[in-house]
C-alpha cells in the first residue's frame, strides 16, 4: 500500500495569509520607487539594469524619491542563499555589462571540454560520444552563483541601490487589486510566535512596482499566483540538487555530466536526474546530484546518493587527497514551458526567474534567463513609469519574455522532462527524439504533474555509505558546513502536518538534505514490529526547523516552506 503526500496538505492558505493591505500608519510606511524581492541573479540584474536606465534620466530618478530602488534579501547577504551548478550562458552578462571583458567576470571562465557518462553501476562509466546536445557547454562559464551574487551585490550597492540583507519579504501588499509593495518579516519572535524582549515588527515598504525574484519556491510568488489566478493548468515540478565544493589536488580540465547510477533505472522508482562535476579554477571542483522530486521510494535520499556517487571510481579519482570545503542544497523548477504561470505580471508586479519557472531542464540552465528576465522587468517598469507614471500594466514585460530566447528555448524543450516519468530508457529515447527534431516529435502537450501527487512506498533499505567524515559526510555536519547557525528558539517556519503515515514521514526524513524531519526511533521500531512499514501506520513527525537550509523540497512534496527570520539559514560562500 502506498500513499501520496498530497493527501496531507500543509496547514496553510498562502493567498489568505501572505497577501494583505498595508497596515502601518501612512506616515510610517517606507516609500520607495521600485522594490525588488530577492537578491539572486534575476533581482540583481533587475536592480542594475534599472540603475543604468535611471542614470540617463535625472528627472525620473528624482521622481522616484529618496529611495529609488530597494532590494530585499532574506539571506545574510546576496549570495548566502544562492546555489546552482552552474554553467552559465554568457548572453546575459554580456548584455548587462557590455563594456566589461569576460576575463573580469566573477566566474571561472569557459571550459572547452565536455564529457558525459552513463554509469550503469557502481564501477563502470560509459562515455557518451559525441556529447549529447543538451550537455554541450562551449562558451558557457563555470560560475558559483554564491560568488556571483556577492559580486553583483557590490555593483548594486555602488549604484546607490538600498540593499537590505537579512530582510525577509513576508507579505505581499495588495490594495484595490494592485500590488503596492511588500511587508518585511518580524524579527525577535520566540518558538510559539510570542514577542521576545528585542521584538522588532516588520515594516510596510510601498513601491510603484514590485518585482518578485524569489527563486525556487517563491514565497510571495506562490501566494500571488494563487491570488491573481495566474497559475498554469500544468502544475510546477521540481528537482532537488545537493552539491559540494571540493579542494582537489589534480586540476580538472573538463565539464562532466553523468546519468544513471546511483539513480535507479526501473520505471517503478521514477528516479530522474544525474550529476555534474565542474572545475572551479585550478584547485577546486563543484559536484552535485540533481534528482526529480517525483521519485517514489521513501528511502531515497539525494544527499546520501551524492555521498554514494563519490565512491564511483570516476569521481573518487577526482577528489583523492582533497578536502570538502562547501555543501548545500536547493530545488529548481523543472516543469518547463507548460508549468510557467500563464501570466507573468499583475498590476504593480512582475515575476522573474526561477520563481516563474524559467529553467530549461534538459540543459539545466536558468541563471542567464533569470538575469534576462530581470532586465526585461526593469525596462518594462521604466517604460511604463515614463509613459504613465504607474506600473498598473506590465504586459510589456511579458511580451519581452515571449520574444526572447527564454521563450524559444523553453518551448523547444517543452515536453522533454515529462517522458522520464516512464523510466530512464523510455524517457531517454523520447527525449533524444525531441532533441533531434527540435521539439517537433512527438509534439503535443505532455502534461506535467504535481510532485506531491506521486504516491510513495517504502522500498528495501538502500546501501548508502556510512559517513567517514573525510570523503562522505552526514547531514548534520553538512548543515554545519553550509554556514547555518539559525537560532534554536525561532518560530517554526515550515508548515507541515505532523501526524502522517509512516511512508510519508520516512519520505520526508530521507528527502530533506538537512535532517529537518525525523521519525522517532520508537515509532520506526513500533511499525517494524507491526510487520509492515507501508500501510498508513500514523507517526508523529519530529521537526527541527533550525537545520533548514531552505532548499524548498518540502514545498514540492506536501509541506510548505515560508521564509524564517531574515538572516537565518545557510551562508553559502562558493556554491
Amino acid at each position, binding site marked *: 500500500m502506498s500513499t501520496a503526500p498530497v493527501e496531507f496538505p500543509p496547514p496553510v492558505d498562502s493567498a489568505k495569509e501572505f497577501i494583505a493591505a498595508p497596515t502601518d500608519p501612512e506616515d510610517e510606511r517606507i516609500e520607495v520607487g521600485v522594490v525588488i524581492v530577492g537578491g539572486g541573479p534575476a533581482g540583481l540584474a533587475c536592480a542594475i539594469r534599472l540603475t543604468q536606465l535611471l542614470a540617463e534620466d535625472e528627472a525620473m530618478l528624482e521622481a522616484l524619491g529618496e529611495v529609488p530602488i530597494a532590494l530585499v534579501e532574506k539571506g545574510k547577504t546576496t549570495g548566502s542563499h544562492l546555489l546552482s551548478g552552474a554553467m552559465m550562458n554568457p548572453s546575459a552578462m554580456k548584455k548587462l555589462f557590455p563594456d566589461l571583458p569576460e576575463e573580469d567576470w566573477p566566474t571561472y571562465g569557459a571550459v572547452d571540454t565536455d564529457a558525459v557518462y552513463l554509469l550503469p553501476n557502481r564501477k563502470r562509466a560509459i562515455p557518451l560520444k559525441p556529447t549529447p546536445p543538451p550537455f554541450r557547454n562551449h562558451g558557457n562559464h563555470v560560475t558559483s552563483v554564491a560568488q556571483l551574487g556577492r559580486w553583483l551585490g557590490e555593483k548594486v550597492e555602488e549604484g546607490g541601490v538600498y540593499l537590505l540583507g537579512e530582510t525577509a519579504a513576508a507579505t505581499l501588499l495588495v490594495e484595490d487589486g494592485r500590488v503596492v509593495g511588500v511587508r518585511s518579516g518580524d524579527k525577535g519572535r520566540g518558538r510559539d510566535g510570542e514577542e521576545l524582549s528585542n521584538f522588532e515588527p516588520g515594516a510596510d515598504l510601498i513601491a510603484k512596482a514590485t518585482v518578485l525574484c524569489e527563486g525556487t519556491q517563491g514565497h510571495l510568488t506562490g501566494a500571488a499566483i494563487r491570488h491573481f489566478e495566474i497559475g498554469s493548468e500544468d502544475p510546477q515540478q521540481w528537482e532537488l540538487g545537493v552539491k559540494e565544493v571540493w579542494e582537489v589536488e589534480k586540476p580538472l580540465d573538463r565539464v562532466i555530466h553523468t546519468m544513471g547510477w546511483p539513480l535507479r533505472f526501473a520505471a517503478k522508482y521514477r528516479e530522474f536526474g544525474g550529476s555534474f562535476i565542474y572545475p572551479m579554477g585550478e584547485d577546486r571542483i563543484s559536484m552535485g546530484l540533481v534528482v526529480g522530486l517525483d521519485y517514489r521510494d521513501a528511502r531515497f535520499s539525494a544527499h546520501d546518493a551524492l555521498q554514494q556517487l563519490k565512491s564511483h571510481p570516476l569521481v573518487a579519482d577526482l577528489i583523492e587527497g582533497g578536502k570538502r570545503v562547501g555543501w548545500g542544497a536547493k530545488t529548481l523548477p523543472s516543469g518547463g514551458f507548460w508549468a510557467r504561470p500563464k501570466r507573468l505580471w499583475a498590476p504593480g508586479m512582475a515575476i522573474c526567474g526561477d520563481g516563474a519557472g524559467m529553467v530549461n531542464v534538459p540543459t539545466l540552465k536558468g541563471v542567464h534567463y533569470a538575469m534576462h528576465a530581470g532586465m526585461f522587468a526593469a525596462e518594462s517598469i521604466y517604460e511604463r513609469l515614463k509613459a504613465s507614471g504607474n506600473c498598473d500594466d506590465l504586459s510589456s514585460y511579458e511580451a519581452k519574455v515571449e520574444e526572447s530566447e527564454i521563450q524559444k528555448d523553453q518551448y523547444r524543450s517543452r515536453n522533454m522532462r515529462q517522458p522520464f516519468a516512464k523510466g530512464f530508457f523510455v524517457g531517454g529515447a523520447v527525449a533524444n527524439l525531441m532533441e533531434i527534431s527540435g521539439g517537433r516529435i512527438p509534439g503535443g502537450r505532455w502534461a506535467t504533474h504535481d510532485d506531491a501527487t506521486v504516491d510513495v512506498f517504502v522500498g528495501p533499505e538502500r546501501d548508502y555509505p556510512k559517513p567517514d567524515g573525510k570523503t562522505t559526510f552526514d547531514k548534520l555536519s553538512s548543515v*554545519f558546513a553550509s554556514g547555518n547557525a539559525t537560532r*534554536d528558539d525561532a518560530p517554526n517556519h515550515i508548515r507541515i502536518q505532523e501526524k502522517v503515515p509512516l511512508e510519508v514521514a520516512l519520505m520526508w526524513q530521507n528527502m530533506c538534505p538537512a535532517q529537518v524531519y525525523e521519525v522517532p526511533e520508537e515509532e520506526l521500531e513500533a511499525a517494524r514490529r507491526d510487520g509492515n512499514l507501508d500501510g498508513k501506520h500514523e507517526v508523529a513527525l519530529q521537526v527541527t526547523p533550525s537545520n533548514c537550509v531552505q532548499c524548498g523540497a518540502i514545498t514540492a512534496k506536501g509541506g510548505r516552506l515560508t521564509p524564517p527570520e531574515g538572516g537565518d539559514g545557510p551562508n553559502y560562500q562558493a556554491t
Partner: protein
Amino acid sequence: MSAILVYALHYEGEFNKNSLGAVSEGGKLAKELGGECAAVVVGEGDDLTDDLCASLGNYGASKVFRAKAPEGLAQPVVDVMAKVIQENDFKYALFGGGLLGFEIGAGLTARLNAGVTMEVTAVKAQDGKLVAERPILQDSAIVDVGYVGEPGIVIGRLNAFDVAEDGDGAAEVIDVDVQLEEHSTKAVMVQRGEQRGADVNIEDAEILVAGGRGLGNAEGFELAEALAEALGGAVAATRAVVDAGWYPYAAQIGQTGKTVAPKLYLAAGISGAIQHKVGMQNSENIVAINKDPNAPIFEFSDLGVVGDLNKILPKLTDAVKAKKG
C-alpha cells in the same frame, strides 16, 4: 638578572591556583634564562602575612614584592607592577589565567609600551628569550609569538601552567610603596566575590556532566544530576533535549548555546554531532558514554564507553562517592 615578575592573586588568605601555576612556571623559565623570578602581591588586608607571601618561594619566587592597595581591581596593580618592573628591570611579566591577569597585563601593555600575548598555553625559552605559544582562530592553529624590546607580557590561559613546588625555600618579602595614579582610584569595589548558587554558570564549571537524547526522557536527567553532584560539577545539555523541554536553555552547549572548556566533560547519551562538538571540543578530558559504537563522539573523546548509560551512570555515581569518601 631580574628575569620574570609574576602576579600572584590572593583572596581571603589563599593564593589563586592559576597564580601558583604561573609562579611555578615563572620559576622554571627564569632558571632557563639564567635569572631570577619574583612575585608581586597587592592587597589591603592583614591576610597578606610575611609567611603567606614568603611561601611563594616554594613555588619558585626568590623575592615577593608586597604593596598596599585596593584588592580585586586591576588598575592599582598596574601601577604597582609598572613601578616594580621599571625599578628592577624585569624582562617579562607573567600572569596565570583569570580575569584580573588579563586586565592588569593589558594595562601594563599600554603603560610600558610592551608586547603582550594572551591565552598562552605554553612558554619556552629560546636563545635567551621567551617565546609564547597561543591558539588562534578558535583553536584551529597555534602561533609562536616573540617579543620586540622589553618587557614582554605573557598572559596564560586558564589552567595552562601546572603548579609545582620546585622552589628553593622561603622568598624574601619586600614592601613597596606605590603612589597610585588618579584614575586607578576611580573604580571602587562595593562587593566582591558574591556567590550566586541558584544559577550556576556552566561556563565556569570545572566539571560538567552533559546529557543528550540517549537519556531517554526528562527523568533521565536525574542520573546526570546525581553524577554531577558526586563529581562536584554542574549539568549541561544538548540542543535536542533542550528543544524537547527536558532541560533549560541556560545549560545548552553547542553552536547555538554556550562554549565550555572544563577539566572534565562527561557526555552521557550524546552522539557528538558537530553542532554540539564546537561547544565543548576544548575540554581537557572528554569521557563519553553511549550505546551506539558508531557515535561520532567516540572519535574525539579521550575515554569512550560503549554501553547502557542507565546501567553505568548509577554505579559510576556510587563508585565516585565512595572514592571521594
